[in-house]
């Protein structure tokens, strides 16, 4: 039975603070091994020693006090009636709120339906100015949803430089290109030894690794190839670190031990100013953007709008840009439908188009604004005057 104020030794771990460990030592709940280690630490740390003695004294002095219990005079019978009164009050509050909401809704309906002058409507979500030219479609590599540079099996090399550069542009990391020829013994040695090292694997998170064969390297345009391939020097394997535009950052070649390779990677990162997104976040945000795109393609605009808006407020710039772009695409679509309704020759047709548009964008601010335009059009028999509230 665990006493109050005591913690089992199994709960002591490296993350425990000195205070926690000293308490466990004084309470005798620290494992023998941990206790010996803590004692050694305390011997070399005067401050910890003072704390140990202080806690030991306080523990002894307050042992009886800790068990001094003031019985509660409250029983469940004191609480349950209050819960019933509370529930009753809650029902009354709900009833009063419902009456108020209905009253406000009736007033609003009367106001909206009363005929009069053409209304002046301010629209914030739908753009009213010149739409200009649509920006080019934007996307993000789908592989980012699951991609990480390492797995439990080791390095996850990509096999396309184009894909690697695309991913590098989103996650703001340099590309690490590995080029090898068939039967390259150094390559095989490095596969078995260098790339299996924890120290090296840890560094791979900072890069987008891609591995190409000699034939793939030869197929690259001269300005895309690692610089060493354009010189008479040949040593395999070759490594090239480049930014997401393909600009070279570092080149090196030959056999590298784990320690040498880690140093090479560290050196290549010197001077690289980037703001990388964690791989997990990049995967999650990519998934959201692609879901938004799928929802938009499927005319599920409310879902797409929510996803785009969520991305637009992110601090990760590429995804914030994608979110803002997606939101803009939807807003432009809503505006085009509004223009189409205004251009219709027959009022019935205008109303039908506005109805369809409001329904399509229902659940978004665009849908709300289209519905306001439709209601005004129905009430007055003419389009309201529109003003941008942006």
């Amino acid at each position, binding site marked *: 039975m665990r006493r109050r104020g005591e913690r089992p030794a199994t709960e002591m771990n490296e993350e425990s603070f000195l*205070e926690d460990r000293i308490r466990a030592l004084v309470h005798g709940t620290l494992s023998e091994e941990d206790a010996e280690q803590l004692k050694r630490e305390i011997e070399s740390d005067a401050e910890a020693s003072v704390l140990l003695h202080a806690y030991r004294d306080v523990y002894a002095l307050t042992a*009886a006090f800790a068990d001094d219990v003031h019985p*509660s005079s409250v029983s469940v019978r004191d*609480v349950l009636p209050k819960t019933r009164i509370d529930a009753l009050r809650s029902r009354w509050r709900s009833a009063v709120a419902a009456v108020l909401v209905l009253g406000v809704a009736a007033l609003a309906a009367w106001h909206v339906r009363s005929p009069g002058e053409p209304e002046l409507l301010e629209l914030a979500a739908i753009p009213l100015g010149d739409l200009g030219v649509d920006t080019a479609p934007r996307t993000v590599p789908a592989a980012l949803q699951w991609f990480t540079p390492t797995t439990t099996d080791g390095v996850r090399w990509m096999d396309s430089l184009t894909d690697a550069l695309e991913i590098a542009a989103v996650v703001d990391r340099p590309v690490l290109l590995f080029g090898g020829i068939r039967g390259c013994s150094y390559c095989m040695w490095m596969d078995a030894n260098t790339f299996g090292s924890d120290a090296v694997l840890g560094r791979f998170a900072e890069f987008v690794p891609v591995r190409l064969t000699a034939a793939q390297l030869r197929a690259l345009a001269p300005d895309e190839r690692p610089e060493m391939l354009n010189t008479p020097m040949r040593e395999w394997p070759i490594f090239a670190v480049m930014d997401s535009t393909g600009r070279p950052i570092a080149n090196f070649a030959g056999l590298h031990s784990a320690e040498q390779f880690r140093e090479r990677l560290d050196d290549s990162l010197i001077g690289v100013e980037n703001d990388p997104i964690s791989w997990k976040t990049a995967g999650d945000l990519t998934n959201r953007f692609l879901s938004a795109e799928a929802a938009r393609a499927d005319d599920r605009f409310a879902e797409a709008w929510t996803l785009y808006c969520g991305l637009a407020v992110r601090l990760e710039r590429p995804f914030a840009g994608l979110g803002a772009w997606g939101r803009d695409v939807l807003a432009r679509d809503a505006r085009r439908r509004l223009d189409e309704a205004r251009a219709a020759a027959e009022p019935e047709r205008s109303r039908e188009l506005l109805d369809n548009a409001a329904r399509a964008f229902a659940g978004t601010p665009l849908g709300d604004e289209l519905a306001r335009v439709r209601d005004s059009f129905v009430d007055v028999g003419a389009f309201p005057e529109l003003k941008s509230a942006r």
Partner: protein
Amino acid sequence: MVSSADFTALFERTHVSLHRFLYRLSRNPADADDLLQEAFLTVWRKRDQYSGRGSLDGFLRRTAYRVYLNHRERRRRRAALALRAPKPAVETPADDSVERHDTVNFLFARIREGLDALPEEAREAFVLFRFEGLSCREISQLTQVPAKTVSTRVRRATLLLAARLRKYQNEMPIQ
């Protein structure tokens, strides 16, 4: 979602330890009773918000702590409004040479004085650490204060309390 039966079972299972928790923090049995009722009532009102993730006991404890924080804030405001009110008499014996049968009460009074003399945040951290058995990290999660700060407060309170109480070591009751 917490059913009425769950709620009654929760009360029966936890009200003693929760009352002790609130008494240690509020230092007043009557306040602890009120806070206990308020904590359970709050849990009942928010029973729809309990999603089933995490323990119900943890949900109750967090609620109780927030109820206590509100109570502490109200008490501070009242104290600020009543600056001129006479201070309550402190029950202190004439000297330390008390009879042996009063030793426990004497020592408890000194411990209470020692705890009361601690800075408020350090006292709360120490109470949760020493008497509720929470780790610095658990206190951090409960109070939303960084764990390192909690650790510093616990250390400070331990050192202050030890310095104050050491002279009473001879008065300790025989265990």
